[in-house]
């Protein structure tokens, strides 16, 4: 038998862990360049936070990774056993829903539409409900199963979308944190849930964040972007680097100033 090293896949190795590599990502709308030369290396079981000023292309990067917008560059993925490579299974929590709050779509409908084969209006709800409640229980949201999406608070909606992104358990979880609409307590609960999930399921998580204090507390790695990657490393390394200082002022002062800009949206 021809034994090949499972960690090697078309010339890239993950040094013993599963990983996702983003190589030379670039996005442009017409002549406006949103992102260029983005290279990232994401390990399993790590929570990677993406930070950067408004308009830095953070949400765009997530959409490019999940293939929703056209981009240049390559996404490579290899799982720990080297069995599956190529396209990772991606779970995505959008920043907000481009959604009409009055639309009669319940949480159960959303899950049924994403997972069921029969059209939602023909599905027997009793059969799927127990399973959906189980999915929701991961984020302690099983009581929301019959609620309309438009009737959920920002924090509840975020948890429901997280539960949907985790069903089935993805290889790569992309989270786009809302700028507003979630109180501090809800935000901390969300970070804690995500942080626990990372350990439990050995997930690779990329989180676009606006809260530097929570990033410092929960993230394993931080990546500062503004059109391209300016710096990356542990949150402390990134915050202390010259680029973060330039964008946010000095770290202590900068973080407060950064938070203030976010409060405008709350």
């Amino acid at each position, binding site marked *: 038998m021809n034994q090949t090293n499972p960690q090697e896949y078309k010339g890239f190795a993950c040094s013993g862990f599963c990983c996702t590599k983003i190589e030379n990502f670039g996005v442009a*709308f017409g002549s406006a360049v949103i992102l260029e030369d983005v290279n990232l290396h994401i390990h399993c079981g790590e929570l990677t936070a993406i930070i950067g000023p408004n308009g830095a292309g953070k949400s765009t990067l997530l959409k490019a990774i999940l293939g*929703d917008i056209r981009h240049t560059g390559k996404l490579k993925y290899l799982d720990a056993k080297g069995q599956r490579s190529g396209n990772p299974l991606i779970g995505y929590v*959008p920043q907000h829903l481009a959604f009409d709050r009055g*639309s*009669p779509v319940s949480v159960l409908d*959303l899950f049924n539409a994403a997972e069921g084969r029969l059209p939602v*209006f023909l599905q027997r709800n009793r059969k799927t409900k127990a399973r959906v409640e189980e999915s929701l229980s991961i984020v302690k949201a099983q009581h929301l199963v019959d609620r*309309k999406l438009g009737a959920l608070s920002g924090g509840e909606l975020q948890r429901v979308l997280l539960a949907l992104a985790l069903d089935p358990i993805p290889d790569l979880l992309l989270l786009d944190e809302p700028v507003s609409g979630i109180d501090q307590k809800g935000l901390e609960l969300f970070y804690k849930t995500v942080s626990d999930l990372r350990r439990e399921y050995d997930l690779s998580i990329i989180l676009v964040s606006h809260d530097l204090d929570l990033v410092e507390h929960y993230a394993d790695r931080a990546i500062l972007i503004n059109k391209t990657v300016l710096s990356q490393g542990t949150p402390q390394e990134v915050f202390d680097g010259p680029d973060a200082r330039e964008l946010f002022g000095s770290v202590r002062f900068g973080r407060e100033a950064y938070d203030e800009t976010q409060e405008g949206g709350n």
Partner: protein
Amino acid sequence: MPAFVYDAMDFLLPFQWVSYAFMKNALLAVLLISPLFGLLGTMVVSNKMAFFSDALGHGAFTGIAIGALFGLLNPVIAASVFSVLFAILITVIKDKSREATDTIIGVFSSLAVALGLVLISMGGSFNKYSSYLIGDLLSISVAEIGVLVLVFLLVMLIWFFIANKLLLISVNPSLAASRGVKTLPLEIVFTCIVAVIVTISIQWVGLLIVNSMLVLPAAAARNVARNTRQYTFTSVLIALISGILGLIGSYYLNTATGATIVLVSGVLFFLSLAVKRVRS
């Protein structure tokens, strides 16, 4: 039309208005077309596409004019082809541009209707085609009902496969993409279905109100439904009730059938608003 259908209708509906063959045909047409409007309307309303579907109607009108210009016996086939192309064009433009799509749709829509009017009025034959503005449901032929049955079955079949994906797109296109939904091809399929239904219905309900048949039942259902199941069935039911009551009403009042149907669904819409108010 097989005779047993007429016999069954005479037996089940022993009313004076059903006794005429043209009323039987019109009733059959209503029973086939209004559920489609109710069904498609739910997605038009959820995706905030009311203006968009209005533009599709205008595209269909231009198609009819082009068909008439080339002297085709049945301009509806030419119109269907044209309005499908028109639907694909605006869907792709809508996808490419990240700016206000209302304006772009408005430009194409008004250009389409202007072109249609110019073509139809060429050679002074405007009156011949002005019926497309108002429509005439009572003129529907047996052969056309046969076409409707085919369209009905085809749309139901396609809908079976795309309904869930469209629902996800309406919630969030990027979320849909993360679940493997190809958003642009699906949107094109959906707009083409709407374009075809609108085009073939124009001759019976008229360009001026065809969009209301699509939007009103779903808009009313939305006020009272709590989930997608209720939304879909209520919308289809309201479309059916308005279709039947409107047809009967137009017979006794001697009014335009399409417009009467829209008025009934308008009344049902305001009733649904009242129900919503009382509940909250």
